[in-house]
C-alpha cells in the first residue's frame, strides 16, 4: 500500500469540501479521479500533497502517518504534483524550474546533477528547445509540460496530476498518455490523474477510477465498469458513455 486515506474530511466554514473519504493506492497503480466541478477533487489533492491539513481523518504514505506533515516533507517522501493552473517560477528559466524539482524533490540532487536531470526530463516531455526561456513566457500547454517535467524530475513514487490533459488536443493527449505509460513502466510511479471532462482519456489511462460527488466518494472500481454505472451517469455524465 503506497497511499492510504482514512475518513479524511476538510471543511471550509460551513462547506464540507471533502467528506470522510477513504482511498487506497497501490504502488505503480494508475488511478483516475473524476467528478464534476466543485466535487472536491482539488481539495483532495491539496490534502494529499499537504497544502491543507485535514480536519478529520488520517493519511498514510508507505505505512507512515503523514497527516500533519508539512508539504515539503511529504515531497521528500516521494509525493509530487502538478497544478490545475500551472504555477511556474516565472522569472527562472524552464531548465531552472525543472532543476528545482530535482533538487528539492525526492531526488534531492545537487545543483549540477539537478541541471543535468532537468535536461533529461525536458527531452522526455519534448520541450528541451525551450530550456533557456523564462518560464512565464511559455504557452499554457508548454507550462503544463514543464510542470510535468518538474514533477517527474523529483523522482516521486506518487505523482498527482491535476487536470494535466485539460485544454490539450487529442494528439497531445495521446503523446502524454504514452509518456506516462513509459515513465510508469520504467520507474514504477503510481499516478493519480484527475479529470473533469476527458472521459476518453481516462479510459485509456486509468486501471481504476474513483468518482467524487459533493465531497464524497460516490463509487470506485475498474474504469469501464464505473463509468458506465447508472449512478455515475446520472449525477455526472448525464448520458450513457459510448467508448469506441
Amino acid at each position, binding site marked *: 500500500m503506497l497511499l492510504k486515506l482514512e475518513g479524511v474530511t476538510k471543511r471550509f466554514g460551513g462547506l464540507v469540501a471533502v467528506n470522510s473519504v477513504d482511498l487506497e493506492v497501490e504502488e505503480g497503480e494508475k488511478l483516475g479521479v473524476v467528478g464534476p466541478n466543485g466535487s472536491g477533487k482539488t481539495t483532495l489533492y491539496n490534502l494529499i*500533497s*499537504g*497544502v491543507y491539513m485535514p480536519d478529520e481523518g488520517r493519511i498514510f504514505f508507505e505505512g507512515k502517518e503523514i497527516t500533519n506533515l*508539512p*508539504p*515539503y*516533507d511529504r*515531497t*521528500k517522501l516521494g509525493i509530487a*504534483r502538478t*497544478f490545475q493552473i500551472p*504555477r*511556474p*517560477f*516565472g*522569472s*527562472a*528559466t524552464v531548465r*531552472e524550474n525543472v*532543476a*528545482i*524539482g530535482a*533538487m*528539492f*524533490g*525526492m531526488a534531492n540532487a*545537487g*545543483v549540477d546533477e*539537478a541541471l543535468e536531470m532537468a535536461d533529461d526530463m525536458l527531452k522526455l516531455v519534448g520541450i528541451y528547445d525551450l530550456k*533557456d526561456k523564462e518560464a512565464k513566457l511559455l504557452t499554457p500547454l508548454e507550462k503544463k509540460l514543464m510542470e510535468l517535467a*518538474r514533477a517527474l524530475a*523529483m523522482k516521486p513514487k506518487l505523482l498527482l496530476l491535476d487536470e494535466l490533459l485539460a485544454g490539450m488536443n487529442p494528439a497531445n493527449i495521446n503523446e502524454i498518455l504514452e509518456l506516462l505509460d513509459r515513465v510508469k513502466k520504467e520507474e514504477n510511479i503510481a499516478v493519480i490523474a484527475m479529470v473533469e471532462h476527458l472521459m476518453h482519456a481516462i479510459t485509456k489511462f486509468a486501471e481504476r477510477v474513483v468518482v467524487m460527488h459533493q465531497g464524497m466518494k460516490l463509487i470506485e472500481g475498474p474504469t469501464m465498469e464505473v463509468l458506465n454505472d447508472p449512478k455515475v451517469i446520472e449525477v455526472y455524465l448525464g448520458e450513457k458513455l459510448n467508448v469506441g
Partner: protein
Amino acid sequence: MKSYSPLITLLLAYLIMIAIGQSIPGMWQPVMLVIFYIAIGQALNVFLGMTGYVNFGYVALLGVGAYGMGVALGYYNELGLIPTLILGFILAAILALLVSAIVGGIALRLRGAYFAIATIGVNEGIKYLIMGAKIWGGSEGIVLSGILRKSFGAETMRFLSTTFADAGVIVVAIATGVVTAYILNSRLGYALIALREDEEAAKVMGINVTKYKQIAFMISCVLAGLIGATAWTLKLTYVFPQDVFAINYTVEAIVIVMLGGAGTLLGPLVGGLIYALLKYYLAIAFPGLQLLILAPLLIVVILLFPEGVVGYIAKKARGTRLENFVR
C-alpha cells in the same frame, strides 16, 4: 548560465574604483562612499533581492554591528590591538546574528507586506532600548577617539580610522559579492528564487520556505553588521545611536537594490554607483537641492528599467557571449 564568471566583472569594477581613488587626487572619498553604498546594497540584496521580502529594519543590523565593534574597542581594549579588533568583528557578527535570529524567527512567519510592516519597528525599538536603558553609554553613545589614542597611540588610531577602516570596508564589500555569487550557484539560491516567485508552489516542490528565508535573512544581516563595524565604528571612531539607527540608510539600500536589479549579483554595484555618484556630485553642483533633483532622476531610471539596470542588461545579453559576465 549560472557560474562564478560574473564575479570577475565585480572584482574588476572594484579594482578600477580603487585605482581611480588612489591615483586621482580628491577621488578617494567619493570612491569609498560608492563602495560603502554598494556594500549595503549587496548585503540587503541577499535577502530583499532573492526573497522579495522587504526588511525595513535593515539599518538596525548595521547599527548593532557598529555597536559590536564599538563595545570591543571601548570596553575591552586592554586585550591589545589585534585581539580587540578580532573581538570587535566577532561581536558585530554575533549581535547581528542574534537580532536577525530573533526578528526573523518571529517576523518571517508573516507574508510579504506584513513582514515589512513588522520590521519597521525593529530599528526604533533597538535604538530606544539602547538610549532608554542606558546600554553602552545610552544616548551619549561610545566615543572612541580618546580611548583609542590613550590605549594604542595617535599613530595607530589614525591608521585604524583611515587605511584599516577603508580596507575593512573594501574586504567586506568584496566578501558580500562572493557570498552572493556562491548563493546564486547553490541549492539555497534556487530555493530562494522559487519561494520569491511562488511561495505556495515552492512548498509543494519540497522547499521548506521558512527555513530558507531565515537563512538568507541571517546571512544578509551578518554582512550588514560587518559593514557597520568597519564603515562606521572604525572609520568614524564613534557610535551614536541617533546616527547608526538612521532609517534613511535602509531606504537608500532598498533604492540601490531596486535600481541595479533585485536578485542579481552586479545589481548593487551598478545601483550603488549610480546612486552614490549622483548623490555626491549633485550635492556639490546644487547644494541644498540635491534630493529634489535626485528623486525624479531615480524615478526615471526605475521607469526605464523596471527590473533594474542589470536585470535589463542580463536579459539583453542572454544568448550572447556577454551572458556569462552579467548577472
